[in-house]
Structure formats: C-alpha cells, structure tokens
C-alpha cells in the first residue's frame, strides 16, 4: 500500500527503532488528519508522553484530553489499563486495592506473559471501535507505539491469545481485537526509520515480522531526517578546493561538503531500505530546529501532505 489512503484508516500504528521519530510522525499524522477535518486520538504507549508537548500541549495523562482542535491525546500505561480492567472484573474498589495495589502482586502481574500488552492493546482498540450516537467516536486513532521488540509483543497479543485460550470472554475479546488489527481497510502499521545502517536493518526485519509472523497490514515506511540533495558532483569538487578559504567561504564549503557526504550515505541507505522492504518510502526532511516542538512537527506534516 502507498501512503495515499493512510489517513482514511481507523487505526494507524506507528513503530520503529528508538529515537527514529515515531512520536514526531504520530504527531504530524494527527495534525494532517485534523487539517482534513478529522477527529483524532493519539494514544501514546510507553512513549514518555512526548506527543502532546510536540503539539504544544501539556504531557498526556491517563485521561483523554484535547490538545489542539480536533486532536486529543492519552497516555496508555500498564498500571492504569490494569486498574480499569481489574475494576471491571472485581467491581469493588476495596477489593481491587487490597489485591492489586500490593507490591508483590504488581510484580507478579508484570511477570505474567503478555498481560500488560493485552490490557493496553485492549484499551486502545476499544477506543478505535467505540461509537457515540451511532457514529465512530474517533475518525482516526494514531498509536505512538513502543520501539521494535515491544511493539511486536504488543501487536502479537490477540494472535497469541487465540492460540492459547480455548473459549470464554477472553477469547471473544481476542477475536474482535485480531479482526480489527488485521483488517487492511481499517488498520495500517506504519514504520519509521532513519537513513542509517542500524535503523535500516532493524526496520527491514520489523517489516518482515509484521507481514510474516503477525500477518498484519503493512502501511507506509517513513524515512525520517533525510538530508536534501543540494550540490552536484561538480559543485562538490569545487567546494573541496576552497575548504580553507577565509570565512564565510571556507566554513560554508566545509558545511556543504559535510552535508553532501551525509546525503550520499543517506541515499545509499534509502536505496537499501527500499530494496529490503520492496516498496517506495515516504521521505521526511532533516530539519534544523533549535528546539523540537510544534513548529517542527508542522513542517513534517507539510512534507507529508500529498504523500499520505
């Protein structure tokens, strides 16, 4: 799938290696969707509550809050997801507190395979399909997912449950969760990468796992922080000859040569990634901002325009 209908999905999960720009891409997708009049929820999972500040708001909490017109955010953490779910099961808060607020029990719950992932994913998917007066509550839910390995665990939960739970309410939950996640009309898993060796390798592996191991609908691959092509080979030659010229020419030539070399390496990695994933990438520009905030995210959203 190309990126062109990405924002018409109900659920877009954004993942990739740590630090590649997942939160930035999530925030920019939300901004773009809001520009098109959509009501968007960004759910941050284990993401250090970075999205809302990138949109100019206070860090998200466990309660859904609107940060910009049309864009709400929420921080989904295992503790609150557990509390919500446990209260649904045990009903009485005093019992909940006696049992679940115990330090040892908390540790035990972390050691139960996939429990945290199940609860967090359940909460997000519940938002993605919830309706108010017959109409979807959100046109789009963007998930700022954890980095690679954790994301695979998270997205693999319904499948794992279906394989192990024979029947009952948990299995019914797993069934609708898997139906939503694996539906290419409603869902896409978008990847973010950088034009560097390790991120490219990791992205290609992740992409293969999402397709083969999890059988989930693969969305576009965003190649973030791509330096622009600014200088021809001839110009680079000329600039190399004046590296030691007095300022501003010398420093400018050095900056340009460094930029051009970075661009050459980045292009090689871009080609490698395109070949490894077997489809076109959506490049996003490397931007020089002193502080990474809403203005930067707006520029990334502008760059996405026409591509998603």
């Amino acid at each position, binding site marked *: 799938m190309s990126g062109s209908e990405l924002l018409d999905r109900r659920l877009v999960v954004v993942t990739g*290696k*740590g*630090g590649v720009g997942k939160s930035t891409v999530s925030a920019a997708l939300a901004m773009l969707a809001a520009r098109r009049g959509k009501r968007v929820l960004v759910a941050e999972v*284990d993401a*250090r509550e970075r999205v809302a500040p990138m949109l100019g708001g206070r860090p998200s909490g466990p309660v859904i809050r609107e940060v910009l017109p049309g864009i709400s955010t929420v921080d989904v953490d295992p503790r609150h997801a557990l509390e919500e779910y*446990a209260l649904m*099961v*045990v009903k009485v808060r005093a*019992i909940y507190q*006696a*049992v679940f607020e*115990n330090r*040892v*029990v908390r*540790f*035990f*719950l*972390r*050691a*139960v*395979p996939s*429990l945290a992932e199940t609860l967090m994913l359940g909460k997000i998917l519940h938002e993605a399909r919830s309706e108010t007066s017959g109409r979807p509550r959100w046109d789009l839910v963007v998930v700022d997912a954890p*980095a690679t390995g954790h994301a695979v*665990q998270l997205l693999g939960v319904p499948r794992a449950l279906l394989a192990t739970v024979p029947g009952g309410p948990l299995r019914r939950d797993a069934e609708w969760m898997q139906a939503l996640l694996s539906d290419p009309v409603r869902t896409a898993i978008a990847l973010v990468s950088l034009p*560097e*060796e*390790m991120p490219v*390798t990791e992205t290609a592996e992740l992409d293969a796992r999402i397709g083969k191991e999890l059988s989930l609908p693969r969305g576009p691959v965003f190649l973030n922080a791509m330096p622009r092509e*600014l*200088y021809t080979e001839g*110009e680079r030659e*000329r*600039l190399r000859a004046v590296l030691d*010229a007095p*300022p*501003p*020419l010398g*420093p*400018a*030539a*050095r*900056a*340009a040569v*460094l*930029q051009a*070399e970075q661009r050459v*390496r980045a292009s090689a990695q871009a080609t490698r990634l395109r070949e490894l994933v077997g489809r076109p990438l959506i490049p996003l520009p490397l931007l*020089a*901002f*002193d*502080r990474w905030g809403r203005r930067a995210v707006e520029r990334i959203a502008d760059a996405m325009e026409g591509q998603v």
Partner: protein
Amino acid sequence: MGALLRSLEGKRVAIVVGSGGVGKTSVSAAIALSRAMEGGRTLVCTIDPARRLATALGLGSLGNAEALVPAEAFARSGLAPKGQLFAMMLDVKRTWDDLVARHAPDAATRDRILGNRVYQQVSGALAGSQEYMAMEKLYELSTERDYDLIVLDTPPTSHALDFLEAPDRILDFVGNETARKLFAPAIDAGRFGARLLQAGTGFVAKTLSRFTGSDVLSDVGDFLGQFQGMYDGFKERASAVRTLLTQPEVGFVLVASPSPLSVDEALFFHDHLRKAGMPVAGAVSNRVTPDLWPFPGGLPGTEPVAEALAAALASAGPGTEDLAARLALTLQEHQAFARSDAREVERMRRGAPGPHVAVPRLPGDVHDLSGLAALAAHL
C-alpha cells in the same frame, strides 16, 4: 590519550551506560581496543553490536563465548596491537539458565524451573532482566578471568536505574515472604495439582485466578516454590556484585548524544551513581556537530553571508549566485545544529563534572577496527 582513557588507566572494569543509539557499543569497543593497542589483555562484552561491527570483531552468532579478535583483522586495518582484544556477545537467556544451574540443588529442580512459563517470562521479557544478567556476567568474568580490563557495554535500557535496582527488585519478589504467603495456595497447587487451587482459601490468589486463569497462577506458585531453596545463593551473589560496583577499580562511563532527552537520562544516572557510591570515570558526548564559524557572536544573517559568498565565488565564473544562496543556507543550518549540540554538550559537562570528552560525528559509521581506532583517538 584523551581525558577519558587517562581516567580509565588504573581501572580493571569499565561499565558504559547511556540511552539507546548514543554510541555505547562503539565507545565500549573503542575503549577495549585502545588498551589492547598499548599492551593490555582486554575484553569487550557487548549486547547489541551493529552487524558489521560484530563481524569485524569476529563475533559469530554464538552468545557468551569470549573470542580473540584475530591478528589478520588488525592487519587489515593497519593496526599493530601490543596486547590482545577479546570480544563477546552477552546472551541474557543463557546467563539466567547458567545461574539457575549453578544454584539448583539437583537436576530435576533445575529442569523444572527452566521449563516454567513464569521463569521464562522473568528471564526473557521482564524489565530489568537484561541489566541484571549483564551485571551477573560481569561479576563472573571479573572474578574468574584475568583480563587487564573488562569493558561492559550495556543494553538499551528504558530505565537507567534498572542496573542498580533490577537485581534486588527481581530477587525481592522471588524470595519474598509475603509472596510466599500470598501465593501459598498456589504453591500447594503447584505441588499437588491445580484442583487444590480452585478450593484454595487464599483470598488474593482466588481473586487473581479469576483474572489470569488458574494455570498461570499455579505456574507462579511452582516457580516460587522451586526457587525457595536457591534464593540465598542468588541474593549473596547479587550483593557481591553490588560491592564490586563500588570498588575503585571500577569506572562507569556515561555516554550521551547531544540531544536533550539523552543528556537528561545520562545526568539522572550520574546522580544516582554518585548517591550509590559508584565511581564515575568520565562522560562522553558523542556525535557532536562541529562549530565551523571562527568568530564570536555567531553567524551574521543568511543574506549578508550569501552576498559575501557570491562575491567570493564571482571570480570563479557564471552560475554561482544560486550556489551562494544554497551555501549560505547550508552553513546556517549546520550552525543551528552545532549551536544546539554545543548547548547540550555544555549541559553534560556541567551536570557530570570530571573527565569529559566530546566526539565529533565521524564520516560514516563506526563499523570496523579502523573506525574504532578513529573513535578512540577522541576519547
């Protein structure tokens, strides 16, 4: 030799910490390489090397095996070490399994624990498990081998303090009295069959089993029951590791990229190391954009720069005006990166007083011994 390597001169153990992707693995290998160049017998124990670096160090897929970096590999990079460099890749799961085998009273207990699902979760995916095992491996290597210097590269931690806290946190659970009482019915169920659990009287266990299913719970019970006899051995060892970390022969090395988040994390860790009495040998700001403008006060605006560039280029022939504008923009963007990097380097320098080195962004990845040597030259 730079300030960091000098500060590490008397050390036998270096532990390299920082957030993911900042260059911990590269810095670790460069430290080990540089001591080997001077005649030391050194080991770098890494966890997630980039593939090409792993190949360059001769690290195959085999985990936990120390391998000598072959002389040909050095020769290919034009390096002639006076000492020896060894490399190994930490295998977290195997380290856990070895530890269980070491402490288990008999083979049956060992196998029962290794096959337990809760054990598999604790040893595989539980937060802090990698950090715990990295420390465990370090202790084993430092007590049972005779390297001049062991450099421990650390996993991309989501919570920096896991290094210091995970062993106790994990052990407190497995050896916890309350846990044994809470899960007592489940422990019985583990021993005598799951039926008992359903009839069990433990209020907590009953509530939990409604929540997780009873077989998971009996796995916990079984795990805790089996672990009971091994707890003291584990605990003793964890406290020996902790003592090791406070010795003057150990030095922590903080690595950060010049980004606010990464510096925050490094400084947070720095404060906790100080509080815990663990020696910090120095800090590295890695992949720093160099400041190219020689005058104080920063660049004049883009337009005057473009004009001056156009004038300087004019003698070179036609078609240069557009080039001047592009150059002015590139210089301005470069300096914007350099400025924000310098701000973060300064924050790191102030926040973690002591030896500090700034390593520039090198041309290309650090993926072989010559790359490591180039990196080491800045340490």
